[in-house]
């Protein structure tokens, strides 16, 4: 390590939200030279727990892998079990699952946009976006009965139906969301505060994105039009007209644009689902004591943060023999480290937030100068302020 290089520990605690994680940065002056992630603060042992619970019990633990993309995890899980059971779910259930998935994407992307605004010191925008996000939260609550952790997909279909007389109201709410998102897109594209902090920051080239196996909006912001919903369609995504969004510039600004445009696509998909909701039952029955035949299956779902994979191996009992979950954030960490390398310390919060991690922890950091054996601490709030001040 050179004379001027410092080591910074970031995490494991963050003031605004998200999970505790820890990053160790090596810095040279204002530049980040290298990054070393240490995850596991949130490791609970879910895969082991799932081997000890029945298939119906697992529905509810798999939902709580992540509270923001809970529906994606449940969809992925139910698809796996249904494939092993050889069960075909009703059309109406498929449409309702897609509707929920897209509402979840809207809520997640708006949440992210708000957090990103907070990270660049634009708190007015943060509060505005979170105010309007309540519209989609209301919709989710009315459809499923809960604001987060909706528990809608179940093995064989969905748990609740959508009342026909509520559909016009939902369509109106979607109009509000679309209009507000247009307003925010306009702000993001023209407001100097956003441009100064996002344009050209946290660059990831197309080659690196592919080489480091990035996923989701992070990959699409680097110019790769890859989306599980289009590449490997599940549910009814091949029947619904929609577009894969990708931008070429590979920076945080492209991340913003990808997510905002995906929100528009999601609104359109929701509209299509509500207008073309087929009649019929919403589920086929799976007994709570039901056993699943021997076999293995892989299920892929495009969660709001990217490609989500679940792998199941069954040995013919009422519990899975092995269940493996890989959430998109883990896939994005190598790309995140690449994005941070060569950037400024002041940009750490926004670049971390830029991949929409299920964790992003910039609190309580320790700066260590190894040569002079000197230590000082800085918390995430201070780092965020430091970033905001630095750009003044």
């Amino acid at each position, binding site marked *: 390590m050179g004379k001027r290089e410092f080591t910074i520990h970031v995490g494991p605690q963050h003031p*605004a939200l998200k*999970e505790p994680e820890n990053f160790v940065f090596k810095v040279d002056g204002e530049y980040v030279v290298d990054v070393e992630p240490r995850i596991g603060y949130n490791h609970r042992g879910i895969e082991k727990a799932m081997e000890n619970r029945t298939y119906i019990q697992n529905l509810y633990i798999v939902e709580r892998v992540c509270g923001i993309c809970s529906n994606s995890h449940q969809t992925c899980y139910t698809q796996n079990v249904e494939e092993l059971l050889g069960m075909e779910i009703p059309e109406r259930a498929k449409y309702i699952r897609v509707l929920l998935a897209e509402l979840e994407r809207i809520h997640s992307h708006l949440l992210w946009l708000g957090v990103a605004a907070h990270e660049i010191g634009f708190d007015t925008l943060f509060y505005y976006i979170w105010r309007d996000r309540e519209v989609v939260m209301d919709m989710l609550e009315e459809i499923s009965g809960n604001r987060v952790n909706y528990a809608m997909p179940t093995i064989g279909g969905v748990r609740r139906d959508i009342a026909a007389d509520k559909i016009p109201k939902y369509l109106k709410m979607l109009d509000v969301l679309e209009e507000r998102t247009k307003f925010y897109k306009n702000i993001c594209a023209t407001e100097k505060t956003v441009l100064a902090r996002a344009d050209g920051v946290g660059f990831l080239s197309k080659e690196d994105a592919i080489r480091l196996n990035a996923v989701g909006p992070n990959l699409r912001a680097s110019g790769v039009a890859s989306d599980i919903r289009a590449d490997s369609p599940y549910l009814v995504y091949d029947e619904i007209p929609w577009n894969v969004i990708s931008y070429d510039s590979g920076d945080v600004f492209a991340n913003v644009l990808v997510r905002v445009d995906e929100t528009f696509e999601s609104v359109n998909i929701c509209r299509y689902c509500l207008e073309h909701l087929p009649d019929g039952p919403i589920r086929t029955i799976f007994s709570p004591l039901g056993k699943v035949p021997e076999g293995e299956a892989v299920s892929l779902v495009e969660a709001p943060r990217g490609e989500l994979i679940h792998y199941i191996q069954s040995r013919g009992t009422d519990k899975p023999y092995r269940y493996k979950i890989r959430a998109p954030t883990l896939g994005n960490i190598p790309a995140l480290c690449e994005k941070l390398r060569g950037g400024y310390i002041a940009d750490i919060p926004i670049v971390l937030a830029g991949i929409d991690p299920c964790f992003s922890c910039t609190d309580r950091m320790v700066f260590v100068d190894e040569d002079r054996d000197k230590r000082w601490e800085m918390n995430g709030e201070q780092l965020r302020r430091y970033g905001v001040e630095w750009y003044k």
Partner: protein
Amino acid sequence: MDIVTWARTRSPWLIHFNAGACNACDIEVVAAITPRFDLERFGALLKGSPRHADVMVVTGSVSRQVRERLKRIYEQMPEPKFVVAVGACAISGGVFQQCYNVMEGVDKVIPVDAYIPGCSPKPEAILDGVVKLLKSAGY
């Protein structure tokens, strides 16, 4: 009411600590400070540093890796301090009971003053819990 209690209950500063939660409670805690629910009208302010905070809002089932950090952050808070456990996981481990890497509840690690049940509790419930805590402190 003496002036110290008055000052203390009129501006409770919060720190939010995620002790291995699934993020559902966390986004609801953040939603509670946004315009629709507006926890800040009770004088509450979400702070980043434990040294500035009076109330620690803890979510999650407390994983082993986070346990020592939770203790350390609790110790950094100035007296008098309060702890609010938000969500089923923070109360008892919730759905993660009998997972090998969780401590099954915040009160196994640090003392808790208020519990807010739910998976996840709605922002209204979080508001209610914080207000009840303030009342018990002499609001």
